[in-house]
């Protein structure tokens, strides 16, 4: 008997079916790993308390503090009462329900999507949920990972399962070799610009092709992280040797015979030859430039070599109106060269780009250079562990010598729930994932960029890539 060829997403789905739905009722899926943070969990725990239910599997659950945590003076009490209350609630809930928690000051504290992979808890072939839309990050390992709402958080805490309707599948094929200075962030920004912020709705995306295969795990996480910005609840990359090498030896990675059994299983996960996707998208990596956004959603992006588009050239009336609104909010004129846009602040951080490779890449660009006058450069490692590692490698010194603020770990300016916010009208180049109106502060203007573009921009003061620095120094020599 031959079995039907399956995609990666279908395999993981099928292997987690507790009960198959019928007549329109959803499937019941087992959840292997539940990540918890302070913002979306308090009511879920309270619901449990109200119903007198325990957490079914504290051993599959882990909590950390990230959204509200300050990145300065972390030894002082948190000033904002709402933030403080949420964090205290998480600590009390973790204690009451027996859940492992990494609090501010702990070496494993940090953005929930940085902490899971770093501890080796995120693995291929598992299901991961968290009350946060960027849970898609964990799909980089070949896990089925998605964000959930607070009622679902309660459901998973109580039952370790989730009723779900099966998704459609979409292949994102990225073939070729990235040119120097072009990164995973540019790939995903280009993908979103291509399919739109709603293009992935109802799908699980699978990123495939030679360009994806050659990426490091951290780069794959950057790509999967932003799947939700294309409207997809989950994005995945098939596990391979790069995945296994990243995992091996991490604190919670399997060891001995368990490791061998795991790898054997993980090798069966990649999409079968002949499996069909419900939709396919193609992107040429060879011709890709650094990508930046000009508007107020992550799909409003162009090559850094391009100019701010003219809404008059957009045929779709809704998109045209959105572009007009965006340009007004961003205070940009059509035709302005992206490279001429001057920024006030550069933010290097968030679950998209705050891992050690991101910090290394940015540090390599700025080392020995001078920061643009008057520009503020904030560097916020994704986790306390990343911060420690960066300090061990001397990266903190490079950033500080350059004039950057070397901060403690957390979400920080990605969403400005803590004091790290932009002032009204302030313009930032940010390595985060959302350029929505007011996201980084009321009236704040955000351009999404890669860590390399962030670093080059911090030197030149205008949106730039490392290539511009080389061009500049050649001119000086001539």
């Amino acid at each position, binding site marked *: 008997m031959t079995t039907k060829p399956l995609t990666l997403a279908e395999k993981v789905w099928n292997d987690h079916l507790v009960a198959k739905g019928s007549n329109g009722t959803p499937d019941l899926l087992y959840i292997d790993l539940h990540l918890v943070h302070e913002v979306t969990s308090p009511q879920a725990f309270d619901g449990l308390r109200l119903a007198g239910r325990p957490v079914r599997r504290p051993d*599959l659950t882990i909590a950390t503090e990230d959204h509200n945590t300050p990145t300065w003076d972390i030894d002082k009490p948190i000033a904002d009462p709402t933030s403080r209350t949420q964090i205290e609630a998480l600590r009390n809930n973790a204690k009451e329900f027996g859940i492992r928690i990494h609090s501010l000051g702990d070496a494993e504290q940090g953005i929930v999507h940085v902490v899971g992979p770093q501890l080796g808890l995120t693995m291929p072939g*598992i299901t991961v949920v968290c009350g946060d839309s960027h849970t898609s990050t964990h799909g980089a390992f070949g896990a089925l990972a998605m964000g959930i709402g607070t009622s679902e958080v309660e459901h998973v805490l109580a039952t*370790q399962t989730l009723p779900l309707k099966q998704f459609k599948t979409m292949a994102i094929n990225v073939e070729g070799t990235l040119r120097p200075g072009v990164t995973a962030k540019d790939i995903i920004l280009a993908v979103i610009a291509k399919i739109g912020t709603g293009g992935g709705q109802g799908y699980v995306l699978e990123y495939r092709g030679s360009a994806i295969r050659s990426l490091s795990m951290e780069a794959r996480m950057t790509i999967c992280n932003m799947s939700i910005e294309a409207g997809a609840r989950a994005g995945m990359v098939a596990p391979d040797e790069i995945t296994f090498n990243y995992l091996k030896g991490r604190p919670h990675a399997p060891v001995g015979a*368990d*490791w061998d059994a795991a790898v054997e299983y993980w090798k069966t996960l990649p999409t079968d030859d002949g499996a069909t996707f419900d939709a396919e998208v193609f992107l040429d990596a060879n011709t890709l430039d650094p990508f930046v956004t000009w508007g107020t959603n992550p799909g409003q992006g162009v090559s850094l070599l391009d100019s701010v588009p003219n809404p008059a050239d957009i045929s779709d009336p809704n998109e045209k109106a959105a572009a007009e609104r965006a340009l007004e909010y961003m205070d940009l004129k059509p035709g302005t060269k992206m490279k001429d846009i001057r920024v006030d602040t550069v933010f290097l951080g968030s679950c998209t780009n705050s891992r050690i490779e991101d910090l290394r890449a940015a540090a390599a660009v700025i080392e020995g250079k001078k920061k643009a006058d008057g520009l503020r450069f904030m560097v916020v490692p994704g986790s306390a562990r990343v911060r420690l590692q960066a300090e061990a490698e001397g990266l903190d010194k490079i950033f500080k010598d350059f004039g950057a603020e070397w901060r403690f770990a957390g979400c920080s300016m990605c969403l400005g729930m803590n004091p790290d916010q932009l002032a009204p009208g302030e313009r930032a180049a940010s390595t985060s994932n959302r350029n929505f109106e007011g996201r980084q502060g009321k009236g704040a203007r955000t351009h999404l960029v890669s860590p390399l573009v962030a670093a080059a921009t911090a030197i030149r003061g205008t949106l730039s890539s490392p290539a511009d620095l080389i061009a500049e120094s050649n001119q000086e020599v001539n």
Partner: protein
Amino acid sequence: MEKFEVFTGVAVPLRRSNVDTDQIIPAVYLKRITKTGFEDALFSAWRNDPEFVLNQEPYKNGQVLVAGPDFGTGSSREHAVWALRDYGFKAVFASKFADIFRGNSGKQGLVTGVITDEDTEKLWAAIEANPGSSITVNLVEQTASIGDLVVHFDIDEYTKWRLLEGLDDIGLTLRDEQAITDFEAKRGAWMPKTLPARN
């Protein structure tokens, strides 16, 4: 969620239509971190008014609300149901409800019974003729009765079944608990465990 079959409690006439979720509970209360303790927030804008029905002695401990049409319109906030529940309400009757509010109610054990406009008037009259009187809600028979007055209410079969069985979403899933336990027994030994912590 507790099972609901027959319940008797103080009836409250709310002679208003289009009571939206902002009136049931304003947005300022949504910042809270609990799922309980919303009793003070219920109808908070109206609670300052001594004339408001819940401020009148016989209705203070109301448990069954009889309201005008289009109850619960507006936002999807579950807090509206929590506020009613925390105040002590077990059932709401109206001739029309907003869909999301009805859905949320069913999940939290609050009965929302649809009655005719005529019956609404009859119930109001009966309650006001004898303030503080009890109403008996019989979910099995789908009736609400005050003394000799018996009115029929509608509720969809699925919600009725869930309320009778005392099943919220989680309770429903836990009916498959054996399947969950069986599934857990087959999980690979390599699967991640957060405990004990290994840093």
